[in-house]
């Protein structure tokens, strides 16, 4: 099929975009592909173009897709949670407010009699507890828990806990939240439910634009049905609004009770420092190992090779047959050295991984194995089922883990059979899961320098997860989950920024 009259819009031409971005967008037909049928989106876009509406981007493959997307929030449990949370806080809020106000004013009053100072610590404990309730509800209502903000800690002395609490901004934020929320929570509740009541009101009382439709079908038996059909899309819109408002509420709660940027940064920096140290150590260990391999292995071979050649040279005149024999020995040693160098090179960075991918590289690793090792590599696919190429550092890490683990299997485990598997990780984030299994004697000990600590460091350095199950007696399972995208902190917002290197669609 060839393109005839339709040329898909290029990136420069796509300027007008719809405001509500759908959760997962199917890829647009690119200029490189020849399309036999236009997608629904293309057709609408073309129509809009012809009507002079400018460039419109409709990222749907079919009308069914569009409908499905529009109505999704109605059946999304998140919508109901949002309403539930708003209701809950409106009820609980006043209680928390009352408690907080009581506790704080009592404490404040009693400070005139010094006894109040002793109450400061428990008072703020009450505040903390109340604020936590609010925080958890808000988190539940907006889809994801809200982590708490770190509160300033103090020593065990008598005075310092009091002064710490009185001067801690985070704690006063909590107080502010509890005091404000008695007013704010009901506001959010109203905002959530108001559109709903408007819609129902329209329905019940038939405000003008809709009575037109109702009159039209007044004499038909499907009045209720028509009303229903009109109502549903509006309800979907309402559900969308409810979720949106829940997200606004979440931002408000996070601003008062959630982790602040500075502590997030500090935590991330600490994490990175630890990871960096681990990586440096793993790198140093690996370097030593390479040096040893080169040194004790290849270098000795080459010196021995040199001896053979030196001796052969001396024998050339008097004993040519002996010389020839020595040269044959020399050639054997050369082959052996080349083989050893190849192994060492493979441990460093295998060319086959880059040229032909993980499957081929892993097959090469197990090729010379004395025991049968199966290799299974399932490609990672994106939302449309297209296989995704692993980023090179993820592929290298996966390869390295598999290589190390297999080396350990062959060296230590006495296994009869083993397997390597690389597949998409079933978790939330795109990741590849590498599993190495052997039926050997187990008992692998991370502290005993068999490279396990190095594997862990490598995986954790790319924000992955590493696990080894190796009970004494076996079997041993090594699992590594390697994310395909690393979390990066955007300097401006401090939220994990989308990794844009692979051209994510906006």
């Amino acid at each position, binding site marked *: 099929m060839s393109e005839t009259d339709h040329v898909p819009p290029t990136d420069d031409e796509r300027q007008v975009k719809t405001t509500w971005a759908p959760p997962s967008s199917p890829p647009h037909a690119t200029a490189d592909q020849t399309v036999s049928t236009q997608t629904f989106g293309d057709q609408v876009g073309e129509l809009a173009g012809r009507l002079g509406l400018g460039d419109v981007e409709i990222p749907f493959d079919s009308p069914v897709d569009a409908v499905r997307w529009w109505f999704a929030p109605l059946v999304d449990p998140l919508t109901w949670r949002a309403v539930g949370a708003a209701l809950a806080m409106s009820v609980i809020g006043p209680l928390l407010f009352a408690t907080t106000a009581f506790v704080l004013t009592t404490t404040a009053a009693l400070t005139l009699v010094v006894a109040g100072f002793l109450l400061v610590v428990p008072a703020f404990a009450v505040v903390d507890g109340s604020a936590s309730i609010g925080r958890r509800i808000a988190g539940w209502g907006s889809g994801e828990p809200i982590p708490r903000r770190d509160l300033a800690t103090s020593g065990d002395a008598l005075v310092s806990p009091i002064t710490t609490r009185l001067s801690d901004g985070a704690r006063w934020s909590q107080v502010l939240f509890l005091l404000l929320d008695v007013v704010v929570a009901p506001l959010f509740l109203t905002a959530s439910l108001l559109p709903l009541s408007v819609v129902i009101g329209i329905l019940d009382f038939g405000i003008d634009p809709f009575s037109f439709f109702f009159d039209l079908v007044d004499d038909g038996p499907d009045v209720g049905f028509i009303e229903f059909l009109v109502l549903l899309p509006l309800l979907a819109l309402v559900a969308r609004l409810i979720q949106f408002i829940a997200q606004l509420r979440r931002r408000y709660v996070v601003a008062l009770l959630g982790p602040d940027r500075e502590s997030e940064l500090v935590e991330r920096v600490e994490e990175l420092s630890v990871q960096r140290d681990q990586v440096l150590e793993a790198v140093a260990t690996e370097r030593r190992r390479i040096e040893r391999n080169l040194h004790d292995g290849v270098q000795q071979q080459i*010196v021995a090779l040199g001896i*053979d050649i030196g001796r052969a040279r001396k024998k050339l005149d008097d004993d040519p047959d002996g010389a020839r024999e020595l040269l044959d020995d020399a050639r054997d040693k050369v082959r052996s050295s080349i083989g050893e160098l190849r192994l060492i090179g493979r441990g460093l960075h295998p060319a086959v991984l880059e040229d032909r991918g993980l499957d081929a590289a892993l097959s090469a690793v197990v090729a010379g194995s004395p025991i049968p090792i199966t290799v299974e590599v399932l490609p990672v696919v994106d939302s449309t089922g297209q296989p995704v190429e692993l980023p090179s550092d993820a592929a290298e890490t996966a390869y390295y883990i598999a290589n190390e683990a297999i080396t350990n299997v062959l060296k230590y485990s006495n296994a009869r059979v083993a397997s390597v598997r690389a597949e998409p990780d079933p978790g939330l984030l795109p990741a590849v899961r590498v599993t190495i299994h052997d039926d050997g004697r187990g008992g692998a000990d991370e502290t005993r320098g068999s490279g396990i600590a190095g594997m862990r460091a490598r995986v954790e350095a790319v924000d992955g997860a590493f696990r080894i199950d190796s009970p004494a007696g076996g079997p041993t399972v090594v699992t590594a989950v390697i994310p395909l995208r690393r979390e990066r902190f955007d300097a401006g917002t401090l939220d994990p920024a989308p990794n844009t290197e692979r051209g994510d669609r906006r």
Partner: protein
Amino acid sequence: MVADDSVLLRDGVVRLLGDADIDVVAAVGDGAALLDAVVEHEPDLALVDVRMPPTHTDEGIRAAIEIRQRLPGVAVLVLSQYVEERYATELLTGNTAGVGYLLKDRVVDVDEFLDAVRRVADGGSAIDAEVVAQLLGRSARSPELDRLTPRERDVLRLMAEGFSNQGIADELVVSLGAVEKHITNVFTKLDLDHEHHVHRRVLAVLTYLGSR
């Protein structure tokens, strides 16, 4: 006898020596076995690798020093993977007759290697050219060394490597008399006592260079 933990290398060296009609009475793979064998066989020369089990650090040097102390009649030639000046100086302190320190690579130059082996077994010395080159390189800025002519510097280098006067004459393709003259000049210019015994000369020169 030969001591090296790499079987490949040990075999090669043994064969090499065999080709040259040198009788190898023992071949061992670690420091303890080395000492036992030396005591048992009392060879003319013990060829020893620096790195051996169990620690793979400097077993060879330790054993060599011990052999020199307990059995001064046994010459020791130490083979090392890389140049370590410290080892060279440690070996040479005290009795310097019949001591050698060479890089393993030298083994590949069969003739030179055998020459060094015989020299050390006869009570002389053999210090690897690399070691000497490093020492010379380091002391290049010394004003006394600047006083030497290039020829004299060559002679100095070869003395440090443990060559006898005849050996130096052969290397530089000059007459024995010329060599002796150069040597006298070197010692005078460097303000050193003129040592005539090769092994003492080696130590003197190396110490001189090492102290720059």
